[in-house]
């Protein structure tokens, strides 16, 4: 059964290689993604949360002297993320253009991104955890530069520099983490590192430094304010599958890293820097939120909104209690599904109309009823209306963060941040509804009369993503019960 974990990244990876060797790009990519989806679904359903711990694990020792091995396995958290990865990968593969210059390389890059993301989530060894993520970044950079739209070169340039520097900071932080362990016990094994945390290995002044390095390293990858400016431009310029995969999945790597390493291993350092994280995440929610309102194009609005929503996940991470981190983990899934759906819809819209500028669009609900319906659902999910997974998870985040008050004390930082975050919901309602209104309602310029609607044959991946959002919105417990045993080891 352990081969299942390997299939989640090998499916897309083998597909990518076969495509480069001349196999039919579209069919091979979709096959690879389906293989990954089926295996990750079995992993997710098959994970036994009553037993807890890491399951389906397999390890191949590489450098025994450093305790470096190729080690994969899942607990509830990364099983969920693997499921998200393969679902979005399938949708991205399906929605990739059918006729594109160098379609082979295009699809191979898409699959390489999916493979890198899945590998990073599946790895329980620091070395490969880091390496797989970079494997996904390189094709991301290339694709934005080659097949992007608009100001693609500047966008590709910026995302490359930001994320590369972020990765190097992260690398130094991870090396620091590795070296904090006493000489004879040094290991790259994440499971062992987590076990060591209980013995107070990661404390003292060096823990503060390592924590900061990890926070800013992972933070840059997740577009933590003020290191977020790469994201909106890059997503606006990126080809649709790349925007879906990066905003939906790959960006979660940074959050996953914080949730897996930085926070549980160094709780004291995390506690000492709570003020910093809270300040920055309010920047994400309020500052970036206001910036989002002023956007005039749908792709930029979505790019900024995805940066803004990271603030909520950070709030959940900062809350340091089980409710909050559970909410953050669920929100990672919910945000991944909803932003991927939104980027997919905006891609279809651009394909039909050639523009995403609010000033050019209007009244499209008449020409494109199905697309506008799907967009409506996705945007309600993104705002966080009840019934969608976003609502369930944001609720948990707010409860968790607000709860961290000291009884009897005055209003503390957590509560201020929570209040700001609640106001942030209003901001996101403003810009999303504004986008909805200016694209789908109002006067319909005559040139949009004959615009074709999407068919279900093309749009079903979006339906699938939205169905996931609704399902987990009504049954968040399906995810939470899987995640909880892993989280309960470190949070109460």
């Amino acid at each position, binding site marked *: 059964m352990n081969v299942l974990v390997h299939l989640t990244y090998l499916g897309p990876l083998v597909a990518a290689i076969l495509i480069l060797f001349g196999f039919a790009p579209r069919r091979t990519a979709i096959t690879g993604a389906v293989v990954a989806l089926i295996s990750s679904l079995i992993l997710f359903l098959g994970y036994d949360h009553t037993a807890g711990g890491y399951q389906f694990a397999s390890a191949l020792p590489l450098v025994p002297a*450093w305790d470096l091995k190729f080690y994969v396995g899942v607990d509830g958290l990364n099983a969920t993320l693997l499921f998200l990865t393969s679902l979005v990968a399938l949708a991205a593969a399906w929605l990739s253009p059918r006729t594109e210059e160098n379609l082979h390389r295009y699809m191979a890059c898409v699959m390489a991104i999916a493979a890198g993301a899945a590998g990073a989530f599946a790895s329980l060894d620091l070395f490969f955890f880091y390496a797989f993520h970079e494997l996904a970044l390189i094709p991301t950079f290339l694709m934005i530069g080659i097949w992007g739209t608009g100001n693609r070169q500047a966008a590709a340039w910026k995302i490359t520099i930001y994320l590369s520097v972020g990765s190097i900071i992260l690398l130094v932080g991870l090396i620091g983490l590795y070296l904090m362990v006493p000489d004879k016990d040094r290991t790259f094994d994440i499971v062992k590192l987590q076990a060591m945390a209980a013995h107070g290995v990661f404390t003292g002044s060096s823990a503060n430094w390592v924590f900061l390095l990890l926070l800013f390293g992972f933070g840059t990858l997740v577009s933590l304010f003020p290191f977020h400016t790469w994201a909106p431009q890059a997503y606006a310029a990126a080809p649709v599958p790349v925007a879906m995969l990066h905003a939906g999945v790959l960006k979660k790597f940074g959050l996953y890293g914080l949730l897996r390493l930085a926070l549980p291993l160094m709780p004291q350092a995390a506690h000492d820097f709570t003020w910093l994280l809270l300040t920055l995440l309010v920047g994400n929610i309020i500052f970036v939120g206001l910036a989002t309102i002023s956007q005039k194009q749908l792709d930029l609005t979505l790019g900024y909104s995805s940066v803004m929503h990271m603030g909520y996940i950070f709030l959940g991470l900062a809350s340091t209690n089980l409710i909050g981190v559970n909410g953050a983990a669920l929100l990672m899934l919910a945000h991944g599904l909803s932003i991927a759906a939104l980027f997919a819809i905006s891609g279809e819209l651009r394909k039909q109309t050639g523009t995403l500028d609010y000033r050019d669009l209007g009244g499209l609900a008449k020409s494109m009823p199905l697309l506008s319906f799907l967009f409506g659902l996705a945007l309600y999910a993104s705002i966080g209306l009840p019934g969608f997974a976003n609502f369930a998870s944001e609720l948990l985040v707010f409860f968790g963060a607000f709860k961290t008050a000291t009884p009897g004390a005055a209003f503390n930082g957590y509560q201020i941040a929570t209040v700001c975050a609640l106001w942030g919901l209003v901001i996101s309602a403003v810009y999303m509804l504004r986008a909805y209104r200016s694209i789908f309602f109002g006067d319909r310029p005559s040139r949009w009369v004959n615009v074709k609607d999407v068919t279900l044959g093309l749009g079903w991946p979006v339906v699938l993503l939205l169905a996931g959002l609704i399902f987990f919105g009504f049954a968040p417990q399906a995810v939470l019960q899987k995640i909880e045993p892993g989280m309960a080891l470190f949070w109460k």
Partner: protein
Amino acid sequence: MSPILLELIVLTLGLALLLVESFADRLNRNTIAIIGIIGLALVFLLLQFGGFSSTAVAGYTQDKAALFFKKFALVTTIIVLIMSIDYSDTVRKFVHGITPQAGIGEFYSLPILTCAGLMWMASATDFILIFISLELVTVSFYTLVAFTRRNPSSLEAGAKYLILGALSTGFFIYGITWIYGVTQNTNLTAIAKVLPSIPASDQNGLLFGAMLVLVGLGFKVAAAPFQFWVPDVYQGAPTPITAFLSVGSKAAGFIVLLRVLEAFQSLPAVESKLSFAIVLLAAATLVYGNLAALPQTNFKRLMAYSSIGHAGYLLMAVASFGALDAGLAVVVYLAAYLLMTLLSFIVLIIVAKNSEGDDITHFNGLSKRSPFLAFSLLIAMASLAGVPLTAGFLGKFLVFKVAFESQQFLLIVVAIITVGCGFYYYLKVVRAMYWQTTTGTQTAIPVSLLSTITIGALVVLIFLFGIFPQLGAGLLS
């Protein structure tokens, strides 16, 4: 059997090929290169599977590091010879003789003599031997750098290299005399034994000598502030020789530096000052190499500055000499550096031949003209920038690790910034190849079978070292 035999074989091979050059007029000169490649490959196999006795001769060690650097020199020379075959048309254009093939044979056989010098240096533990082998290397480089003598920039490079090389030799030998004056020895093992008993009053003289040696080696490894010669020489020299200089010469400098530092370990008072000087050198080299690389538009010049930058990372590992794996970090970094630098240069030679120039703009649209070359260069650039799953990452990883272990926080902060710069300027090449459209010639680029195999092998090795770190970790065992 002693490995000295191998140096003798290589030396004989080089001299024999020179004789062939002189007497066999009609022989196709590429045959000389092929014989050279096969001969060196045989020596490599002999070294790999020969089973050498490790009885030490005075001033000549056969430890694992020495064996590694010998293999390193052999591989580098083989690949340089393969590049030279692709480059021979250019050599022919700038060297006029009575026959059309005049000089080409020398161009193929001189690197083999250099290789003998490099191999010797890997084992030398006596200052005199080190000096002689270093000169054997440097003197053959003087000739090679200025080899395309009708090309003014090659001549200019030759003159600059000669003057600064001679200057650095002066520093080096003067440093040796000071060390000899204090310790009465030139043998590093003997020096290490004598050092603890040196009275404090003599330590300043010793430090002065060691600093002079450091300056001399600083020139060889292209460390700032002794890097002035690098950009012009690298740009002007024939491209295979540039590759040889940036890989072989640098590796030689580092093996000597490691041996000298090892000897000085026994006198911490001097060693700590020496280490501090190396920290400063490393920081200056990192900053200078990487910042100056940012605005470059010529690929060879870019590689020159990047070679300075990489010297900085290597010095960072040397500065962390106290850490457990510092030697391994240097070795792994050099191995990775060999693969990715030679890969870049071999692609450069082929592209430059077909585009009439070696500016970065000449790489525009390479992904359309030759997807194979573009992909290979992409891998080389990714590895030079330090992207995981490539050899370059393993090197950077180990360098950061040992720097962390010996608490070189200044260097770590500097290196984080310079790695970021690295991404920027290596990406410029990737951008040209993939994101921009061709301005000049559109024709596909032919690649010879030998070059295809070499490029393919280098790409595969870069991946293998990146994906299986045990290969790198096992280099010294």
